[in-house]
């Protein structure tokens, strides 16, 4: 399947990935509205880690044997057998945070307002995930990796 790969050596830690992820997951798809007025507040599913000089972005790795899927108490987290994507159904999510406890990448984001988890969905419907398309230094690439 195609996964988002972070190139640490190219990442400047600018955080635009978070901005565009937030916008892509907003209702309005408008940066200003997404940040200033939209309710519920959209949140980024990509997380920038900075410990200078190191910086990189991290999001769901869509693991082959995903600990979050195994641990999910409600059945909200599933591994799509066809596409390989780890999907999260927020209507089924009970907000128990068990996936947050077990994700080795810290890639599951707590939507504290919505009281459910939010995660990377690879921007289904877009040609390329928003974080990849808008990374100014090509530190994020979307490419085929062997399972």
């Amino acid at each position, binding site marked *: 399947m195609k996964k988002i790969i972070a190139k640490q050596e190219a990442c400047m830690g600018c955080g635009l990935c978070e901005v565009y992820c937030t916008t892509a997951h907003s209702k309005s798809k408008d940066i200003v509205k997404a940040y200033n007025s939209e309710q519920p507040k959209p949140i980024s599913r990509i997380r920038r880690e900075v410990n200078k000089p190191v910086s990189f972005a991290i999001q769901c790795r869509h693991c082959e044997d995903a600990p979050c899927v195994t641990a999910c108490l409600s059945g909200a987290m599933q591994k799509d057998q066809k596409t390989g994507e780890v999907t999260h159904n927020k209507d089924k999510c009970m907000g*128990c945070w068990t996936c947050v406890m077990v994700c080795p990448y*810290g890639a599951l984001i707590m939507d504290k307002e919505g009281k459910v988890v939010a995660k990377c969905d690879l921007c289904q419907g877009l040609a390329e995930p928003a974080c990849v398309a808008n990374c100014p230094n090509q530190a994020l690439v979307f490419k085929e990796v062997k399972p």
Partner: protein
Amino acid sequence: MSKYVIIGASAAGIAAVEAIRKVDLVGTITVITEEACAHYSKPMISDLVSGKAGIQKMKCKTDNFWKENNAEARMSKKAVSLNLSDKTVNLEDGEKIVYEKLLLATGGKPFVPKMEGQDKDSVFTFTNISDAQRLAAKIDSIHAKGAVVIGAGLIGISVTEALMKRGLKVTVVELQEKILSLLLDSKASDIVEAIIRKAGVNFATGQSVQKIVGRPDNDGAVGGVILTKGDQVACDLVIVAIGVIPRTELVVGTTVKINRGIVVDNFMQTNVPDVYAAGDVAEAYDFILNQNRLLPLWPLAVLEGRVAGYNMAGKKASYEGGTNMSSLKYFGIPIVSIGLANPKDDPTLEILVKLDAENNVYKKLVLKNNVIVGLTLVNCIDRAGILFNLMKTQTNVKKFKKDLLRDDFGLAVLPLGLQRKMSVVQ
């Protein structure tokens, strides 16, 4: 005759079916369950009481699950005995099912201590969907105003929150001095208790219920409880949520070895050939304590059931082990507790703590030989899984242990080599 027979269709049983079908597409699978619909999330039953979830939302698998996996689910059927030499499971209705491989995934049952008045109407246990349905219906039918919850563990706190959301006044009675004592040390417990008290819950700790009393107008209905220290608490409902004990009754008197639960090896196999056990009924491996023990937790039941299923179908798989690990969401305060939460004074353990009392944030790490063996996070659980991964992989954290408590803790604060290893795409 069924190649695979599984008794119990909750977390472990379901995971076993999935694992078997990854290896063996044709062998017949029969799953026996007492429940009318078993593929629901047991941890979600409090959401049914609060009204947050209905039965559809609670289903952790689709209704087609059994069909899709070509497994025959025998709902509302009870297995009453085993004949291990004939490899037969006997059902209550007289039917006998012969197996080649058997999985005991019978789960746990609520522990209810002897109390005077416990047979009164409106005394509930709280472990499955029918308990939750009966409780929800009773709240409506008697217009319940107050409840006493016995037990301030995970189940007790979850049902307490649900009852509060339904507008009931709740008193929680706990034998230990502190609430959530299996998951939190006394500092963390105090923080959490204060928050729950603020939400309007009363706690009576360090005591238990000596007697459930009836109503003045109807002695058969619950009117209140008398605590061991003598106080009386008025209520319309009593919920016993002390804990679960393994449902081993099917194997009592057989050659299957039982300690507190069914004894299994790392392949989830019992001492009897072709008989496996997984989930709350089994004593599986704890990688922190380095011994097998009862750990009645949903995610571990899934892992154990999967290992059992693979081995039953002929694919060798070993259980990686679990430990006492829970995440809590109740009363708006997220908590993660993994491994040793509250170890007794032990000079070989190193304890790192960070407290931000103003924001109710508490972090605690227990280290042994520079390996994390205990983790408690209160109100700051983001990225907890990175720490859990360090625990699971028994990584030596000597060089960066101070960084583990940083507010911005993440993969980037780890030494470069480890950071690369831990952030690589699986």
